């Protein structure tokens, strides 16, 4: 019961609160929240929406895992955004340049993305470990620099190709593309969705079944205790951030290898920040993150239907922002409530045990 209350209640409260907030906003502007919700839910069954939700959910899931690895150690990798975009860009260039047999080609592209993501976050990692630079600031700066570097890389006189009004990298040949599962008119599920699931399993295994995961969590819970226990803090910072960047490198690949086959100036952005929000929503738990990613993707994709009933679809952005802020607040409220309940329980036990001379043993109820 306690577990249900501490784990499931806060997100539920937060979603209800955010939904109420949006309902009020819609009512104030003269729209019907009920219609909006109904339209959004029926939209899931229309066209390619369901498949789009799964595809986007997988992308958000990978991004959130990358964030969560850092969060475990109380490191804020704000730079997922820059890492994934630069990785996708370089991977597209590599994929469009080399020509290899089918499976090998894909593997080379994925490796390139992972390496670039890891290297870009590695800069922040080294600065943090050896120069004491806050990773928050350095990764924000690296996000800007990544934008500049991408613009430079896909110039026509660097690696870019002019296609109509848009500049893009050379297209990746079929040998390098990742398989997808077609549902006919309902769309095609990216094969990378399975990679995302595998990453989730790997993340769970890493945290709960390996020494590294233990050290990671220990460093996050209490750096001093971890150091006393023989954990090299500097090494942990570097590994955690580089690993986070390596996973971030994969974020752009589902769309690159499953749909776009080239990186363009208009390739999607913002997944890094979505990842932060989803990781918070899912409390860094592999299953929680998956649910958060699907919720986020549902809001994103179903919002398209709101235009049909004359509701500004930007209401969804308010919902998303509100849900992130209220979920962290809800965790804090529930935590305080639990703490107070525990204090009352212990006090009651102490009162009952007062006549006996050994209060210490009964006082440590957990």
């Amino acid at each position, binding site marked *: 019961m306690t577990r249900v209350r501490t784990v499931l209640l806060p997100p539920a409260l937060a979603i209800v609160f955010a939904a109420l907030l949006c309902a009020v906003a819609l009512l104030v502007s003269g729209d019907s929240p009920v219609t909006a919700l109904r339209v959004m839910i029926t939209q899931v069954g229309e066209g390619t929406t369901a498949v789009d939700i799964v595809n986007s959910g997988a992308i958000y899931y990978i991004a959130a895992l990358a964030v969560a690895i850092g969060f475990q150690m109380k490191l*804020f990798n704000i730079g997922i955004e820059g890492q994934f975009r630069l990785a996708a860009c370089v991977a597209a260039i590599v994929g469009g340049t080399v020509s290899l047999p089918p499976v090998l080609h894909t593997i080379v592209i994925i490796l390139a993305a992972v390496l670039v993501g890891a290297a870009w976050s590695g800069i922040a990692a080294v*600065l943090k470990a050896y*120069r004491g630079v806050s990773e*928050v600031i350095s990764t924000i700066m690296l996000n800007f620099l990544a934008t500049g570097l991408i613009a430079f890389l896909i110039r026509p006189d660097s690696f870019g190709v002019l296609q109509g009004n848009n500049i893009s990298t050379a297209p990746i040949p079929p040998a390098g593309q990742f398989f997808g599962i077609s549902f006919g008119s309902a769309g095609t599920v990216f094969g990378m969705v399975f990679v995302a699931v595998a990453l989730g399993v790997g993340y769970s295994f890493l945290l709960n079944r390996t020494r590294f995961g233990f050290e990671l969590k220990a460093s996050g819970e209490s750096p001093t205790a971890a150091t006393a226990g023989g954990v090299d803090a500097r090494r942990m910072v570097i590994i955690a951030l580089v690993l986070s960047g390596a996973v971030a490198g994969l974020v752009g690949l589902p769309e690159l290898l499953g749909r776009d086959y080239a990186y363009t100036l208009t390739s999607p952005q913002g997944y890094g920040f979505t990842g932060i929000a989803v990781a*918070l929503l899912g409390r860094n738990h592999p299953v929680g993150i998956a649910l958060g990613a699907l919720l986020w993707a549902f809001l994103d994709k179903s919002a398209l239907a709101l235009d049909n009933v004359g509701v500004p679809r*930007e209401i969804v952005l308010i919902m998303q*922002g509100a849900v992130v*802020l209220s979920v962290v*607040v809800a965790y804090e*409220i529930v935590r305080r409530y639990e703490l107070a309940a525990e204090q009352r329980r212990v006090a009651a036990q102490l009162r009952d045990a007062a006549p006996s001379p050994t209060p210490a043993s009964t006082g440590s109820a957990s």
Partner: protein
Amino acid sequence: MTALAEAPASGAGPPPTRRRGLRPWARSALVVAVGMVILSITATLTGQLQLTSRGTTQAALLLLLPILLAGLGGLWAERAGVINIGLEGMMILGTWGAAWAGYQWGPWAAVVGGTVFGALGGLLHAVATVTFTVNHIVSGVAINLLGLGVTKYLSTLLFYPVSQNPRQSPRVDGFDTYSMQPVADWMAALEAQQRVLLSDVAGIVGGLISGLTPLAILGFALVPISWVVLWRTRFGLRLRSCGENPVAAESLGVNVRRYKYVAVVVSGALAGLGGAALTLNPGQLGYLEGQTGGRGYIGLAAMIFGNWRPGGLLFGSALFGYVDGVQLRAGGQAVHALLYGATILAVAVAVLWAVRRHWRPAVLALVAGGLVYAVYLSIETVPREFAAYAPQLVTLLVLAVAAQRLRPPAADGLEYRRGEGD
């Protein structure tokens, strides 16, 4: 960031300066003078006269104002111990609020509207971080998301019917600009004579005193005002004590929560004012989706660059604004010339260290200068794509070199719960 080595100086500048008897203002004047000489030499030798022209300075001034205000916002919050990554979101709220009030009731209403909307964002951050002790960065990221969402929603709702564009507000009336006459004309005349150093100084000074708006003057006035309020009043001392050691402040009867609330709301108001400065920018009057372009983050960087002090923050945002202005007005060629200036600066720094007989930093500075010079020689022009991000690169380099000399408030970003100190 561990900066305990510098702790005894308590933020009043490193000890060597005191030994030489240079007051902070004199040191700033020296920095400005040296910078001016280097720029002048660079402009003369590379022929990039745009580096010190009046137009470049004016562009830089417009660009630095929002960064400066966001940075001041960061300063207020962080001096009270609350990290404010949400500056960007508060700034976006400010641009919207300014445009909404501005297109209906004029520029002064825009200033008020931007400030109020920013302050609302700040209030939200304060509720989350102070009352509910949510992690400051988490709350900030959420506010950035929320700021973007709220403004997009409101723009579709309220601007679209008027401007026929959901991403843009109707045109906002800007401020009239003022020039300090007749000095501005003298400077223009002097600049036109193309004399070494003299004309360069005239160009920069001329740019600083012409085309001013009341908002720009207010923005610059807020730097000394913030300094006086935070460092020379009882209120400021208490506010900063909340950022250094809230438990000690609490034990002395300071209402830490109230001070943190005030600081974060002021922080949001300043960021919102920065947003208003963007909305009232003469080149682009009105709200435009995405017009902040990460300036809230850059303001934060400028503040860290400036070691959590108003003067340093002004210097940091001037650097950002200047490089941005040069890049916009004169393009990659001029930014390329700045590399030459950076070489001169590195050599000067090397000589300075050598005179003090600190050989290792001297050699390092010399090597860095050599590297920059090699880059300068090997490329014709800095690609446009990089030129735009030069300030971010500089910030990263400065942090890499000087992070250990920076001294953030001791309890910056830490959770504080009333009555739970040990």
